[in-house]
């Protein structure tokens, strides 16, 4: 049951083959049994889940609801959920129960989905391995000694292990795609502005974007139907109607023009990963697509540009965590400054503190032009590269990450090696275009994700491309051994 698609489960729920309460209990039992090995949930909201499931059953009884009604999902713990602890993976928010609901979780809830709980993540979404969580590292279901990727590592691991049908994630520099790749699931980072950021705890506001993480492109499309669309509460959300993401999944790929950026296949790319990607590209050619080499010349600059812009915004976004109104406050502050300093030093982990300092430095007087402004100039160049390339091709393909999942602890002492993990994903966020990670094979027993990037608001196209691939391959149907036992 846990391996089945949203469409199948929706049918079963509608046919009364199973009730949402039963399905929810099944997943809660799986979480109880398997998650101690994975640590993919920070909070399991059993009571809320069962209440929602009962409500979904009542709705289904009357023949109403959507394809998500009664489907158990999980939310990354940076979406604020009313009445349910929302930590953002941080000690700072160890006690934070929001009195409001994020637009994303609210829309998914309105579509009838059941929230099983909140998934683990790198603190404030800063990380590529999910090792930066106050609630402990998440393990990769394919190999418990490996990282699941980050920052949406909890969501990726939970979906891969069948602890939730699907999950939400957020992607600031690859945080949906890289863990999806490492855990062998399908993830979509939508166009910046396609999904509302209201109620999403901000890391870097101009880059953050929520999106679906699921077993297949079709499941992602079901989630996008609920998540996407204009939100008047988010001024940066796109004021244009969302597409029907399910409508064109079956459009044949004949004549699809695929661009392969040569910079994505250069030094640093694991040859085994390269082989998997090239095999996937061959599969697309069989489906009628044509392939041409393209160039995204400023790829290398995406790392310095990102690691100035994102920390700059973060340094400001995280100022509100000051111990005054909510979140962690140190014991017995001597005075105001002491309260600020100790509350923040105790509440934030090392990586968060590091990025706040980098950002504060980059924005400070005398450095702003050399760092922040220059990074913004590079960002425009990167965007122009994509715009130009996407005039010639329909989609761009390449690896999501240079390697498969790496060992827990293997890169924690080398931040530059860790930052290099994001080389193929960061530029997408800087440009604001949508991109997916699709399971495309394995290297040494670990999943490899194919990255598919498209033009602004081309989510439906990406989902169509991914779905067609998944109709002809079964990489997305593979299940890690540890998930089969329960």
């Amino acid at each position, binding site marked *: 049951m846990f391996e089945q698609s949203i469409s199948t489960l929706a049918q079963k729920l509608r046919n009364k083959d199973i009730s949402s309460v039963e399905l929810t209990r099944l997943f809660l039992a799986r979480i109880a049994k398997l998650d101690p090995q994975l640590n993919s949930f920070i909070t399991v909201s059993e009571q809320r889940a069962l209440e929602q499931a009962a409500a979904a059953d009542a709705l289904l009884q009357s023949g109403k609801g959507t394809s998500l009604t009664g489907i158990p999902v999980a939310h990354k713990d*940076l*979406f*604020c959920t009313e009445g349910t602890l*929302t930590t*953002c993976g941080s000690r700072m*928010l160890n006690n*934070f129960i*929001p009195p*409001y609901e*994020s637009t994303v979780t609210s829309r998914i809830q309105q579509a009838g989905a059941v929230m099983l709980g909140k998934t683990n993540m790198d603190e404030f979404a800063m990380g590529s391995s999910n090792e930066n969580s106050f609630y402990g590292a998440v393990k990769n279901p394919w190999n418990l000694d490996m990282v699941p990727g980050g920052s949406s590592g909890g969501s990726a691991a939970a979906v891969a292990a069948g602890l939730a049908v699907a999950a939400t994630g957020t992607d600031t520099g690859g945080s949906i795609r890289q863990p999806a790749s490492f855990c062998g699931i399908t993830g979509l980072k939508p166009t910046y502005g396609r999904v509302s*950021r*209201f*109620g*999403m*705890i*901000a890391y*870097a*506001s*101009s880059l953050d974007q929520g999106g679906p993480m699921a077993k297949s492109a079709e499941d992602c499309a079901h989630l996008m139907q609920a998540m996407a669309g204009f939100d*008047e*509460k*988010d*001024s*940066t959300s796109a004021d244009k109607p969302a597409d029907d993401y399910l409508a064109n999944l079956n459009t044949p790929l004949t004549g699809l023009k695929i661009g392969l950026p040569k910079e994505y296949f250069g030094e640093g790319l694991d040859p085994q990963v390269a082989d998997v990607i090239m095999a996937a590209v061959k599969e697309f050619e069989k489906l009628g697509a044509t392939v041409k080499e393209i160039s995204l010349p400023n790829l290398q600059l995406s790392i310095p540009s990102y690691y100035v812009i994102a920390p*700059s*915004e973060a*340094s*400001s976004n*995280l*100022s*509100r*965590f*000051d111990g*005054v*109104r*909510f979140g962690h406050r140190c014991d017995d502050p001597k005075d*105001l400054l002491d309260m*600020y300093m100790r509350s923040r030093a105790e509440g934030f982990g090392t990586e968060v503190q590091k990025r706040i300092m980098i950002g*504060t430095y980059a*924005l*400070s*007087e005398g450095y*702003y032009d050399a760092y*922040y402004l220059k990074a913004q100039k590079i960002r425009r160049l990167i965007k122009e590269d994509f715009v130009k390339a996407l005039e010639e091709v329909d989609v761009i393909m390449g690896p999501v990450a240079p390697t498969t999942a790496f060992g827990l602890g293997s890169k924690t002492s080398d931040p530059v090696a860790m930052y290099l993990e994001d080389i193929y994903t960061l530029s997408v966020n800087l440009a604001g275009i949508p991109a997916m990670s699709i399971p495309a094979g394995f290297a040494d027993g670990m999943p490899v994700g194919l990255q598919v990037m498209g033009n602004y608001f081309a989510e439906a196209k990406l989902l169509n491309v991914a779905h067609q691939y998944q109709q002809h391959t079964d990489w997305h149907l593979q299940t890690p051994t540890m998930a089969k036992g329960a």
Partner: protein
Amino acid sequence: MNWEVVIGLEIHTQLSTKSKLFSGAAVGFGAEPNTQTTLVDLGMPGALPVFNKEALRMAVMFGHAINAEIGMTSVFARKNYFYPDLPKGYQTSQMDHPIVGKGYLDVMLEDGTTSRIGITRAHLEEDAGKSLHEDFQGMTGIDLNRSSTPLLEIVSEPDIRSAKEAVAYVKMIHSIVTYLGICDGNMAEGSMRCDINLSLRPKGQKEYGTRTEIKNVNSFRFIEKAIYTEIERQADILEDGGRIIQETRLYDPEKNETRSMRSKEDANDYRYFPCPDLLPVVLTQEYVDNIKATLPELPSQKAARFQSEHGLSEYDANVLSSSRAMADFFENANNVVKDPKLTANWVMGELSKLLNQEQLDIENSPVSAQTFGELLVRIKDNTINGKTAKDVLQAMWDGEGSADAIIEAKGLKQVTDTGAIEAMIQTILDANATQVEQYRAADEDKQKKMIGFFVGQVMKASQGKANPGLVNPILVKMLKG
């Protein structure tokens, strides 16, 4: 040494929008702490700002009123600093691309001279909350009702050269924003606050001296006094061979002194950068032009019209147009009596006197423009004389009814029957034979001085009701015998 003072002003004007600059919370003064807030004003995680378009419209109106370039693309920026009543840890403001660019105002001083004050810019920004230091046993209470209230910060060039000029400029800004209806102008409640940048330099020197900034002065009188005090303080230091330290100072009205708040070394690095949660505000020419078309008549335009249309003096026209309420009162009253000079004299004279006595704004005058106009009609048609009219106005003020009702009830109607006046005069001449003899013996100059006695007697006998315009000629004629 002969010092020249150089002053630039930053005026924070609270825009009178219904809701806040970036949230739907109501704007209001005096509500229970933290009751006028939303997630946005509280700086909750994940809360996002949504720009209030009404504040934009008001800012563009102001831009037109000061002859300014309108920023067709303006950008909100974050000004980052930590303070407990600044919930997000930054203030959303505008830095490089303000909504209103360079403009100017021509300010008229009391001596009738005009000086042009340049306005560097005016930008939109959100206000912070308030820290409450009382009643919390050594802790600080935070009230975020004011958080995200819209402000328009109006920054002048250092073109101001005296306290009087500064006050005239602030009054002019006050008058414009209230005319436009974009600010209630209530300085006591903080709707307008002024930061004063002030430096001295030897007369004739081109370079500016080191300046200090006096923060948050909130009345015309305090602005004037703070400037005088600060000039004196700086001059004393300079004349003793000292140097001015660039710093922020506070004006204490009780001690009438400014004192240091923080020096430049303690100043924050605000790390301004464009706010990524808000898109740049891009205006169309049509939008800007449409707002221009909605501008009401401004004080200077009104003053000019009062001179050309109503024949008022420049001084009267300026006084009457200094506030929209005063101008409206004048025009509404004049519509009833159709005598601008008479109306101007009575609005600026007796009515203003009563308002001042009770410290009331003209908006709250117990006598309406309409009823005030009706009183003036009775002066104009000689039903009552000016002296009686003052009493009638006082009775109206005290709520005793309309002018006509009071005149009727108290029998104050002026005597205009010449026969009755002649009879009254005859009685008085008969009773004062000695004075009549003296008058008749005197020369013309002396007679002119003596006639007052007889007029006084007549007015006394008539209880003020005799029409002075009739009494005089009849009296002169009858005294001749």
